[in-house]
C-alpha cells in the first residue's frame, strides 16, 4: 500500500494534478468502505461523519 501511495504522489507531481489529491483521499476512504462492505453497511459511517 505504501508503494502505491508513493506512486500516486509521484504521478500527481509529474502530471501537476495536485487538485486530484482530495478526490483521491475521499475515494480511497469511501471507496474502500464501499468495496469492503459491499455497499450495504456504508450508511451508518456516513451518518456519523455528517
Amino acid at each position: 500500500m505504501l508503494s502505491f501511495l508513493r506512486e500516486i504522489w509521484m504521478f500527481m507531481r509529474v502530471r501537476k494534478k495536485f487538485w486530484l489529491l482530495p478526490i483521491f483521499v475521499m475515494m480511497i476512504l469511501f471507496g474502500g468502505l464501499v468495496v469492503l462492505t459491499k455497499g450495504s453497511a456504508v450508511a451508518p459511517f456516513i451518518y456519523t461523519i455528517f
Partner: protein
Amino acid sequence: MRILGLSAFYHDSAAALVEDGRIVAAAQEERFTRKKHDSGFPHRAVDYCLAEAGVALKDVDYVAFYDKPFLKFERLLETYLAFAPRGFPSFVKAMPLWLKEKLFQKKLLKDELKQAAPDFDWETRLLFGEHHQSHAASAFFPSPFEEAAILTMDGVGEWATTSLAHGRGNRLEILREIHFPHSLGLLYSAFTYYTGFKVNSGEYKVMGLAPYGEPKYAQAILDNLIDLKPDGSFRLDMSYFDYCTGLRMTNAKFDALFGGPARQPEQWMTQREMDLAASVQAVLEEVVLRLAKSLAAETGQKNLCLAGGVALNCVANGKILRAGDFQRLWIQPAAGDAGGALGAALNAYHQFQDGARQLNGALDGMAGSYLGPAYSQAEIEQRLTAAGARFASVDDAKLIAETVDGLVAEKAIGWFQGRMEFGPRALGGRSILGDPRSPSMQKTLNLRVKYRESFRPFAPSVRREDVADWFELDADSPYMLLVADVVAPRRRQMTAEEQALFGIDKLNVPRSEIPAVTHVDYSARIQTVHAETNPRYHALLTAFKQRTGCPVLVNTSFNVRGEPIVCTPEDAFRCFMGSDIEMLVVGNCILRKEDQNPALKLDYKDKFELD
C-alpha cells in the same frame, strides 16, 4: 536483451517476446483459453512465448505493459467531474472495480509475475508504456521503413484517441494527439451499437455492411455529430453520445437525429442500417484521408505506418493508398489492443533501452505475422489420434494435389499449417479455404460452415506476383488490410433487373470471375501471399492456378461465429466435426468428413456466444 510485452485487463489480452529487437513470438490469450476477447492476465500466452524462446521468466530482462493505469484513472475521474452529476450511475458501477482492482494493476501484475519468478526485482523490471505509444511502436518498429510517418487511431487509450507521430531509426516522436472524448473509434462504435452489433467486436460487420447502403446520413453526421477541420482534426458534439456518462453509446438525441431507436441485436436488418453503415464509413474515410494528408505535409514522409483498432478498417486503408499522399503503407496486422503487447516490448527495447533497430531489406519484422505456436508432424499425428480422428499422412506433393482436388470439387477445406497468426486475420496458417470461382461458396461458407450473417463478405488470398492481374492493386498486402476492386475485365456487369435488387439480395448476383470474394461494390479485402513467408500456402495457390488458371482462393478464419480462431490440432478437429467443413488438412495429415466416426460429431452452431 529479452523483453516480454503484455496487454491485459481490458480486452484481447496478449503476450509478445522480443529478443534484441527481433520478434520471437506473439499470441493472444483467447486462442489458448478458447474464450473470445479474453481479457484476463495472459498466463498461457506468456508460457507459450517463453517456451518458443526456450527460456524461463527469470531469463527475461524487462516486462513491458501496454498502457498506464493511473493515466486512465485520471481520465475517468476528470470525465466524471466534467459531466457531473450526469454520470453518477456509471460512476457507481465503475469505481468499485477500479478501487478494488484496476488501480492496483502494477501490484496485480507483480503478483502474477512473482508466481513464476519469485526472486526477480519486479519494482525495477516492470515498465509501462502509453497506450498510443505502444500502438505507434507496433506500427513503426516492425515496418520495413527506416523513416516513416505514423498514424494511430482507436477508441481510447489513456487520453489519446488519435496520434500523429514520426519515426526514424530506433526513435519515435508523437507530434500531435486528439484526446478523449473526441474519438473516431468511438464514433464508429456508436454506429456499431446503433445498427445492432456488439461494440468492440462488431465494427468490421458495419464495414462489411456499408457497400449495401447509400451514405444518406453522411451529411447529417458531418453537420451534427462531428466538427471536422481541413487538417483532419475533429471534435464530437457530446450531446448526442452517452458513452462518457452512461452505459450506452448513444442517447435519445442521437435516436431523434437518425429517426428511431437502435436496432436490437439479431433483429431483422433493413436498408436503414445499411445506409447508416455506409454513412459512418464515408465519414470515417473522410477524416482518415484528411489526417493522412496533413501528416504527409507535416512530416514530408512518403511512408506511412498505421495501427490502432481503426487501422483494421481496410476499406479506409485502401483509400489512403490510392489518395497518393504516401507511396508506401505498412499496417500492423495486430492493430488492435493485442498488438499493444508487441508495441510495448518494442517500445521498451528501442526507446527506453536505446536498442538498435535492424532492418531486413524489403521484408518487415513480423515474419508474415506467423508468430504463434506450430506443431511437428509427429505431434500432430499423436494429437489427432488421441482425439479419435481418422486421417492419412501424405507427402508434400500429394498433400497439395489432394487439397487442390478438394477445392476444385467446391469443398470447404480447413487448412492448418505452421505457426498460428498473431492478429485477428487468418493468413493461411489457420484458415478455411474455398474455390472463389464458385457462385455458391459465399453462402455455403457463411451459413453452413461459419454460421454467421449471410451479408458478410469473404476475402481472397492471391499470389503476390498475380495480384495486379486480378485486382486494382500492385502493392504488398500480406495482412489482408487493404481493400481494392477486382480489375474491370474480370468483372461481370449487372443487368438492369439485378441492379434494382434490394440490399442483401444483391449478394447472390455474381459480380466477377471470382464471385465468392467480390463484394457488391466489386471490392475485395486482399491478402497477398509471399513465397518467403508462407511457402506451403504459396505452393497451394500455384498448384490451384496450374489446375484452374486462377491464383486466388477464398480465405476465412478457421473458426465458427463467436469462436476464437483454432490454435491446436484438437481445436481444428473439433471445429471440423462441429461444422460443414468437408476436408481438413493439418500439417501433412488429410482428414475427410465421410471417414470420421459419426459419434464424434459435435453441435457447434450454438456453442459460442454470438459476437
